[in-house]
């Protein structure tokens, strides 16, 4: 049993303490926008915000997440408006298969919070998510567009 605060709501989840946050979010809370890709914190498909910082939720346990503000892709929009990163993603038609894009968008949203006008080098260092379709060219364009939005 653990109380998790996800997208502003506190939810009691009946899981073992060492359950990866990813699986608690997907299976116990039922938010499937956060994806499973590798389970070893390498691909970034499971990226969420924990107290505003981009974290790979497959590599973090539920007990480590207790008491923290967790934001998933479903909670990124606010007051009925999509986040500027999501808006830039739509304007630049970024996703192909789309499976990695939740994690990519969460990683980018956290980057822009820290560095509102990232350089290409900032992007290279901060965005390490895998995309097998190869959307990187549009991802970079959309990051710069969101930064100047």
């Amino acid at each position, binding site marked *: 049993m653990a109380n998790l605060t996800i997208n502003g709501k506190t939810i009691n989840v009946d*899981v*073992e303490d060492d*359950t*990866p946050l990813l*699986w608690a979010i*997907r*299976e*116990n809370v*039922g*938010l*499937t*926008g*956060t*994806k*499973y*890709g*590798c*389970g*070893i914190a*390498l*691909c970034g*498909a499971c990226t969420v915000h924990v107290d505003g910082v981009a974290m790979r939720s497959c590599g973090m346990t539920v007990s480590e997440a207790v008491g923290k503000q967790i934001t*998933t*892709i*479903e909670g*990124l*929009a606010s007051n009925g408006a*999509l986040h500027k990163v*999501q808006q830039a*993603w*739509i304007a630049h*038609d*970024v*996703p*192909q*298969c*789309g*499976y*990695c*894009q*939740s994690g990519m*968008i969460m990683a980018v949203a956290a980057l822009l919070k820290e560095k509102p006008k990232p350089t290409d080098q900032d*992007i*290279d*260092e901060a*965005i*390490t*998510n*895998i*995309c*097998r*379709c*190869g*959307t*990187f*060219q*549009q*991802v*970079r364009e959309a990051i710069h567009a969101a930064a100047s939005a």
Partner: protein
Amino acid sequence: MNQHVMPKLNRRAFVIGAAAAGAGLAIGLDIPFGGPQVVRAADGSPEVNVWVVIRPDNTTVIRVARSEMGQGTLTGLAQLVAEELECDWSKVITEYPTPGQSVARKRPWGDFSTGGSRGIRSSQEYVRKGGATARMMLVQAATNEWKVPASECTAANSVITHTPSGRTTTYGKVVEAAAKLTPPADADVKLKDPKDWKIAGKGVKRLDTVDKTTGAMIYGADFKLPGMLNAAIKDAPVFGSKLKSYDEAKIAGMKGVKKVVKVGDSAVAVVADTWWHAKTALDALPIVWDEGENAKVSSESIAKWLAEGLDNSQPAFIGNQNGDAKAAIASAVKKVEAVYNYPYQNHATMEPMNATALYTPDKCEVWCGTQNGEAAFAATLEASGLPAEKCEVHKLILGGGFGRRGMTDYVRQAVLIAKQMPGTPVKLLWSREEDMAQGKFHPVTQCKLTGAFDADNNLTALHVRLSGQSILYTVRPAALVNGMDTAAFQGLSPSGDAAFGYSVPNLLVEHSMRNPHVPPGFWRGVNVNQNAIYMECFMDELAHSVGQDPVEFRRKLMSKHPKHLAVLNAVAEKIGWGKPAPQGVYRGIAQVMGYGSYVAGAAEISVTDGSKIKVHRIVASTDPGYIVNPAQVERQIAGSFVYGLSALFYGGCTVKDGKMEQTNFDTYNSMRIAEMPKVECVMVPSGGFWGGVGEPTIGVAAPAVLNAYFAATGKRIRSVPLKDQNITFA
């Protein structure tokens, strides 16, 4: 902006599927007196024909039989139907027909298979006719009402106008009447000249983007049914071996575990309340495998066997020949020879394989991402033992395909598990480790190439001897031609959609087929990948061996192949071939034909310490005949370099003790944004034919970079991946 409709479809499919097992697209038939049957969609709106459903508010539902896996086919096919239909594009949504409905209605949507870059090119004509036919019926319905000739009416944006009177009506108003009309004869359906296209040919936005940015899109891995359980599976890691035993008692008390089941004769699955519980218990389950002889196979033993196939004394299939290459080489003034190889590769779709199945003795339903709905349906029939009318497959959006999801092993497993738990829906999801272990791998090959020159440095002969695995031998044996896998010669064929682009007086291209026990599959680009590396790097070697410029050298051999030459020239010009490159930057170039399209690529790279490569810029050109959505073609081309260069730098799956050594992205890495070069596309659609887009460009990615590496270092790389030679991205 268009409605982003797939999730709505999915949600509805879910509701229908859960509430009334077996309900498909059509829920009823109207049989009016004296007229044809009207087939209605789930919401009651009539079909004008199988491709087009129109709602009273003019919402146009376009049916798409091919699968969307990121390549944009869903949007492209909808554009083609909408172009001829003359409907309001802003009111277009799409919907997948189901394979069960297709069988019941005698395959009105044709082939569902989505591979070989065929999504658009092999269905464009009949889907355009579907749109045109529906438009003619809608206009006819209006003219019947107005009692005017159809020739006085025009249609645009879902509005029909009687030009002389200015009277108008909408598709939504006449659709009920149109649906009752007899369709025009096929010969009376005229398609537009592509130069008159208004929706097709334009870079309109994808129809599925919004839900892919909000987390709302439901992939197979996300699918849920009430009361559903979750399964994790382990199949025999030594390919072709068997499951001997497992000790169920060891995990009996583990949380959430409901059942441990044998799946076929080679796999075991744990079914639990959550997938995390199922996976945790499976990892703790002691399993004994009956590994057999295949456990002795290694990458080294495979390489040795393939190397023997390079010897001319061994039998081989001849894929392309003219003149007498062996004799010309034997008597040549100058001879150049090189041996290349290409490893196994895993598709590594971001979404691991998965399928959800619900079995009862009266019905078996499957929900999954698949590149081949009809093959998934056939697998469902076979595994369930039920007849077609008692089976259904509901297709979901794919988290990547690249050829892997054309296979149905995961569908079969899901049904075999569900069959042991009648009435309980079970979602089978592979771990990444299972996905890496149980791939359908890009085949392993080697290639020996020999070129001969006369005294004036003209290329007089070329002998290309391939040795290695055939995909068709295992996957589609009926497609072999007298034992020969013609697809093994992709890019090197005498004619067809993967034709060789050079004229050499004496040519011999042959294949010594050697099939190791590792299961092969169609991996985005398929045999174009290695054949383009072999041929295009060797072309570079030949050019340098006689001191000629690689582009000039190629041009001399390409005069009879103007379309191949046109894309080569396009990239050469755009990248500035022949002009000085920036300080420290070196160029390489490659061309190939595959999937009916002509492609070329050029790379600008710099190399540090001989081992760190920075790819600065790529120029890529493609001639696919026609382009339905240039924005998506551009994305497919850029993405092709990510797939092709990931394989070149980081890829390669190796066999030890009969099984794959790579287990996850730590041992099978993939390019990140920092490594992504700028990709510039030059599209030169020349018309008159329809080629594919998703795959051919991958072929030129690796050789363009390898040839640039030679230009930079003087060192020729003939083996993939580069990580094995301690070469990496800078």
